[in-house]
């Protein structure tokens, strides 16, 4: 299909798109997470008759009010950019999801209505009708989550499309199969808990700095309290992530294997590894702080559960290909790391280290690491999908020949051998001509002459 495409100045179109998207998503996710947590905190304050929770909830909603307009304005920019820069994608995608988009707009209106007119503005006037006020807060949160739900479904369809993308002149408008695509629940829960985790860690980090700057003792006490509270929630929520992430990866492996391989050792793996590094950093500092800070059994029990679950995930995870020594070395490594972590916790437990200024700054840096880890997740997924807008349905306009060849190689070779793309680097000797000729004769291999030539050319150039 021939479609008009806009050329962008200065930077390629994907840079423009990422720029707009990454300015909107952090704002939108932060608002969604804050609006989910605010009525919960308010309810806790109401039950415990503790004003600190109410103050925290209100300050979070106030922050959402500040961010709402710029976030929404940036949000309108996203479809505008897509329509111009990827017109075929937008036409076909909007053809498939017209009604979810319209319903999402209605959710948005309801969200604004509840947030502005029922929740934030009458906060003081409803102080004697707290239950009704909390109910309005819950309604705001529900519509916020519903908006996220719709976008997660539409976003996950791009990675795991369950029905073909309709043609430009084929307005389907609604497809249950497309909406409830295999990746949808995993992406939704991954983002839901991810949002809460990163926003709370970041909020805790910011409160830690505010705590340092307070001179008034009562204010200092308040900021000390909210730092602990939010940071703890952020840290505990993160332990849901390995399980959801594991399930998401499994779904990708089954439904979009090339995306899976791209992340697990392929061209997108560097982003993923960097993200994991940030998470490890986050776990180390946040875990150390909380272990030393909270001596009650509940928190220690939760942390123990989290560490055990992390250990299990590492146990199920195949050995890292860049680690020499295979499975044994891999298991020894993560066991040593976890033991070292215990030692670290033990050291932290002594001498009240957590109360030092340096640790408050460490909390702030941990919050930033959480934010960047979150942002890198979306970036990794979109990089892994290259060269497709919608996996195996629609190729990007700006696709480069080597990206198409790489996808082809992953699909034809890696998928069959169940190996990581990194294995190709280690393979010796590099006699790709012979190797491909041998492999394509194996039963089940479906590679014709032309395709073989394409694969060999790519292997010779890049491996």
């Amino acid at each position, binding site marked *: *299909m*021939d*479609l*008009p*495409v*806009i*050329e962008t100045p200065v930077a390629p179109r994907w840079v423009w798109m990422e720029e707009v998207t990454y300015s909107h998503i952090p704002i939108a996710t932060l608002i969604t997470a804050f609006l989910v947590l605010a009525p919960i905190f308010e309810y806790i304050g109401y039950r415990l008759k503790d004003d600190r929770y109410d103050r925290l909830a209100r300050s979070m909603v*106030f922050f959402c*009010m*500040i*961010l*709402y*307009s*710029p976030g*929404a*304005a*940036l*949000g*309108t*920019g996203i*479809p*505008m*950019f897509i*329509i*111009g820069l990827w*017109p075929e994608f*937008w*036409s076909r995608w*909007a*053809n498939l999801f*017209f009604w979810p*988009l*319209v319903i999402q*707009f*209605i959710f*948005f*209106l309801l969200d*604004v*209505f509840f947030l*502005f*007119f029922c929740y934030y*503005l009458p906060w003081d006037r409803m102080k004697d009708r707290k239950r009704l006020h909390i109910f309005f807060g819950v309604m705001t949160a529900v519509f916020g989550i519903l908006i996220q739900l719709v976008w997660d479904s539409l976003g996950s369809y791009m990675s795991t499309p369950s029905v073909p993308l309709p043609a*430009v*002149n*084929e*307005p389907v*408008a609604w497809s249950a199969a497309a909406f409830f695509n295999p990746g949808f629940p995993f992406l939704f829960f991954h983002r839901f808990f991810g949002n809460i985790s990163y926003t709370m860690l970041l909020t805790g980090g910011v409160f830690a700095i505010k705590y340092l700057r307070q001179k008034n003792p009562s204010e200092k006490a308040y900021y000390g309290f909210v730092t602990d509270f939010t940071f703890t929630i952020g840290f505990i929520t993160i332990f849901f992530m390995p399980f959801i992430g594991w399930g998401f990866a499994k779904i990708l492996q089954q439904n979009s294997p090339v995306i899976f391989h791209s992340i697990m050792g392929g061209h997108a793996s560097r982003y993923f590894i960097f993200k994991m590094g940030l998470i490890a950093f986050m776990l180390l500092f946040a875990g150390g702080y909380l272990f030393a800070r909270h001596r009650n059994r509940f928190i220690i029990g939760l942390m123990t559960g989290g560490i055990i679950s992390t250990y299990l995930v590492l146990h199920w995870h195949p050995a890292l290909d860049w680690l020499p020594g295979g499975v044994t070395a891999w298991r020894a490594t993560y066991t040593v790391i976890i033991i070292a972590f215990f030692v670290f916790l033990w050291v932290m437990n002594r001498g009240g280290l957590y109360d030092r200024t340096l640790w408050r700054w460490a909390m702030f840096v941990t919050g930033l690491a959480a934010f960047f880890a979150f942002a890198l997740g979306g970036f990794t997924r979109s990089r892994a999908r290259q060269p497709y807008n919608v996996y195996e349905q629609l190729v990007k*306009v700006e696709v480069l020949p080597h990206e198409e060849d790489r996808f082809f190689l992953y699909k034809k070779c890696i998928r069959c051998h169940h190996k990581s793309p990194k294995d190709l680097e280690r393979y010796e000797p590099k006699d790709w001509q012979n190797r491909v000729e041998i492999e394509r004769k194996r039963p089940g291999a479906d590679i014709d002459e032309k395709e073989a030539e394409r694969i060999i050319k790519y292997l010779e150039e890049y491996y």
Partner: protein
Amino acid sequence: MDHIEFPVLGAKWAIGSIALFHTAVASLAIGLAFFVTVAQIVGYIRKERKYDLLAKKIQLIHVCIYNIGTINAIGLVFLLSGLFPQFWSQIFVQFYWSLIVEEFLFFLLAATLTFHYFFWDHLWGHKKLHIFLGALLTPLFFLQFYIINGIAGFMLTPGFGEAEASLSTGVLGWDRFGFYNPSFMMLNFHRVFANVAYGSFCAAGLCGIFLYFAKREKIKAFYEDGGLLAFQIAFAAFLSLPLVGYFYAHILKYNANEAYVNLMWGRGDITAGGVDWWWLKHICVAAMLGICLAFFRKMSKKQTVFTIPSIMVYSIAIFYLMFYVAMGMVMTWAFFWFMLLFCLGGALLGGHLIRYHQGSGRGVYLLVAILSFATVMLGGYSREAARPRFEDRIAHYDKVFIPEYRQRYLMVDIDPQDLPVVTALVEETGPESLIRERCVGCHTLDRVKKYPLDNWTVVVRQMEAYGLKLTNQESRQIIDHLKSQSPY
């Protein structure tokens, strides 16, 4: 199925309702921003806190309305791309960069507005900076709808026939000739003044509502003064509208004749449901005028801070009377009498409301705000309804007009054979179009049709004596056609 159907409402009304709602909300936001700045400046100069407090209160309402408008804009984008894909695609081919600049301004506005309201108290010691921030909103808003008006004006008066003239630019996503179309400037002027009037009337209306609930004398005086300030600003902007509207109509007559005829003589969707919606809009305007004149006549006798002298009130009345006489000449005299009647009715009602509320403007503020809202909605509807309808909502991009010259910039894997052939617009010729175009310059066609005698040669000569410019050949064509009693 070629395109998506919208249940119950249908595609046209779905877009129409959301677009009108957006217009009402967005226009209000623009007007409120202007009022807030004026109120802040007045408060600062006069060192009266009450104006600053009122500005803050109105700005909070503005923030709420702005967010609703933003969300609504998202809905409009989704609905347009799904329900009118061909139109939307065409707009993107021609105006993509305009829309992106618009988005950038949108973000700047949102950030400035948020900062201005939520940091009101924090910036108390930097009042000039704070007022400057608030004042920034108005030019940003104007810039934003400058862009939207380029596109909206193009839809009514495309100028160089479907932007064919823009071939020479060769730039994708930016159609200079389409953007600076004939009605662009007049639409800008019209909307600038109308939005300021509408927003300020609504600010006064809000003061009116608060007055109904206020019990303490101090609070009442606060809203009374605030309402008066808003009402004055609104009325000043409102006064310019007949002049701008007159020239806007003039542009339409020559560049969108069908829309002009539909508006002036109630054809097509203008009279949907058996009601002439454009007349109804003018009835609201006339009533507003009458109420305002009665209000300011009463106020001119009072020693208040903001007053308009009586002589100015009567001058305005005469100015408007002249406008309605001119409209009566162009349209029908029934229009003139109707407007006069509603203006007088409005004046009587305005006087009654002031007496009933013992000198308080609350009733007037509220009523005029409602009428102002109705005017904006009806005006928006009339402009859209005047334009010929979409014949069909063709699927995405299939028949998007892309000039051949620009194809190599625009397309991916182009096959020119598949593109539809675009033909230039054919201008109407012959005596029928001569009569329709020339005679309506001074009077309605009804007057021609109702003329009882057959002395057309004398009549046409008379008209030429009055200033009608015709060549001998054109004059003969018109006379022959009128004598033959053929339709026109």
